[in-house]
């Protein structure tokens, strides 16, 4: 009977350690182990074990039909949000390059009017990409910058307007309301927008990542996750919990600090990397 006593305590512990180290969290780790134990395989066979484990992990990423980029109308507005330092501005540069290479006319909106040199930072990226960026003066209302950018994008026949926002803690309601205001401002001109709202999440984040996703989703609704800094040693396992429990698909991965260090999220290679 391949089943309940198939996995010894030592193997179970080893499996649990791999999963915990990957930041999947204890409850998720226990669920995965239960599934693997029940699997109809030879649990003593290393290859079959790995295959079963990978299959179980991939089941958390069940939103493959929602993973593709959805750009509605023109200009399609894509909003990048997330906590401080997660990699939003850099991800926008990478995402913009990707769209430009697909022949799309891209414009940036520098709606981080708060942090020191945020405007200079996005301007450098826009310059490197040779794409227009609409920015405000430091301390300006982010929603007003979004408004100006949207106006400009409409008049300049832009395909995609990408909005950078200031980092913020999801526990600060007034900052979360600020994001709502940006979205409402865009909706005044086009109720079909934004086409996408991406949570940019640092892959070294632990279980707090779920709280981040929950809160941002509650306030503004998220359509996808960008998981950054996957070129480090963190596995980004919190993404399993986010996609499974919140129904938000992981769409892109950040793999470094340059333009090309960006790719579409592939559950198969992600799960493969997690168990290695």
């Amino acid at each position: 009977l391949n089943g309940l006593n198939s996995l010894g305590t030592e193997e179970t512990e080893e499996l649990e350690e791999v999963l915990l180290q990957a930041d999947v969290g204890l409850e998720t780790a226990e669920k995965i182990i239960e599934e693997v134990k029940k699997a109809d395989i030879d649990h003593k066979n290393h290859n079959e074990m790995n295959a079963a484990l990978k299959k179980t992990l991939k089941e958390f990423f069940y939103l493959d039909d929602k993973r593709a980029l959805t750009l509605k109308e023109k200009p399609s507005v894509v909003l990048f949000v997330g906590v401080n330092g997660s990699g939003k501005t850099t991800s926008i540069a990478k995402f913009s390059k990707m769209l430009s290479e697909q022949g799309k006319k891209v414009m940036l909106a520098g709606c981080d009017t708060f942090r020191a040199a945020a405007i200079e930072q996005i301007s450098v990226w826009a310059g490197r990409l040779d794409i227009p960026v609409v920015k405000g003066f430091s301390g300006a209302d982010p929603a007003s910058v979004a408004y100006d950018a949207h106006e400009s994008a409409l008049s300049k026949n832009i395909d995609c307007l990408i909005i950078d926002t200031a980092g913020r803690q999801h526990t600060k309601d007034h900052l979360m309301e600020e994001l709502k205001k940006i979205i409402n401002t865009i909706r005044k001109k086009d109720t079909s927008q934004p086409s996408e709202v991406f949570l940019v999440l640092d892959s070294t984040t632990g279980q707090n990542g779920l709280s981040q996703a929950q809160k941002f989703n509650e306030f503004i609704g998220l359509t996808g996750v960008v998981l950054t800094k996957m070129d480090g040693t963190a596995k980004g396992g919190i993404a399993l919990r986010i996609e499974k429990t919140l129904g938000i698909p992981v769409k892109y991965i950040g793999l470094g600090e340059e333009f090309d260090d960006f790719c579409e999220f592939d559950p198969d290679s992600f799960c493969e990397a997690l168990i290695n």
Partner: protein
Amino acid sequence: DLTQKFQRLFKNLRGHGKLTEKNIEDALRDVRLALLEADVNFKVVKQFIQKVKDGVLGSNVVTSVTPGQQFIKMLNNEMVSFLSGGEPETIKSNDNIILMTGLQGSGKTTTCGKLGLVLKRGGKKILMAACDIHRPAAIDQLEQVGKRLDIDVFADRALNDAVKIAEMAVRRFTDGGYDHLIVDTAGRLHVDSSMMEEIKKIKTVISPSKIYFVADSCTGQDAVVSADSFHKALDFTGVILTKLDGDTRGGAAISIKHVTGRPVVYVGVGEKSQDFEVFYPDRMVSRILG
């Protein structure tokens, strides 16, 4: 929260006297879940649970009238002692040169300003050095931070070498009669060997008396890996944990202390320069235990 859980777990024992090993196992399972949810590294959790278990079995918790409260008190004390100890690492007047290091986006540049402000308010003359030549507008960022706080910043946009800039900054520090030099560096991965070589070289040329590993408090299990790696490369003296104004429990504090032996010295509690505090182990423990 844990206290209520234990009150419930142990309340059936009142009148029956002794805690059994089974009761303790149940309680420890809850502790384990709480600590893992708080992002304490699982290896550290294992050791900690064992310590608590041995402590409980050998103590008067077992025969106490309020075992739940006693248990929590023991947990608390064990964790506080886990986080305390080691050299007190706040800046002294002869800590002239301070090096800031850490992973990308952890809060180094912002924290340079925070530390500078604290020292400036103590009447000291501060110089900050912009040694991140890698991130777009990094020098602008530190200069703006310095301008806002009226703290001098040394930068050289013509020099394309972080080590040379650090060297020049030390010269400016000495010639300018400053009390403290705070050196900001680029975020880097512990697995990026050329960047780890760079930070080692910076350390060699500036010879800092304090090296702070600036870490994001919402870091998960990977905290032990990166901290261990940075510690082996630089032998940093202390940790600054940032973004504690969020709702992360901050278990990384325990993991980092455990694997490096280095204490958390300061914490960042917001984006403004004033949002900076000295680290108190007992406050952190209440937060981690939820």
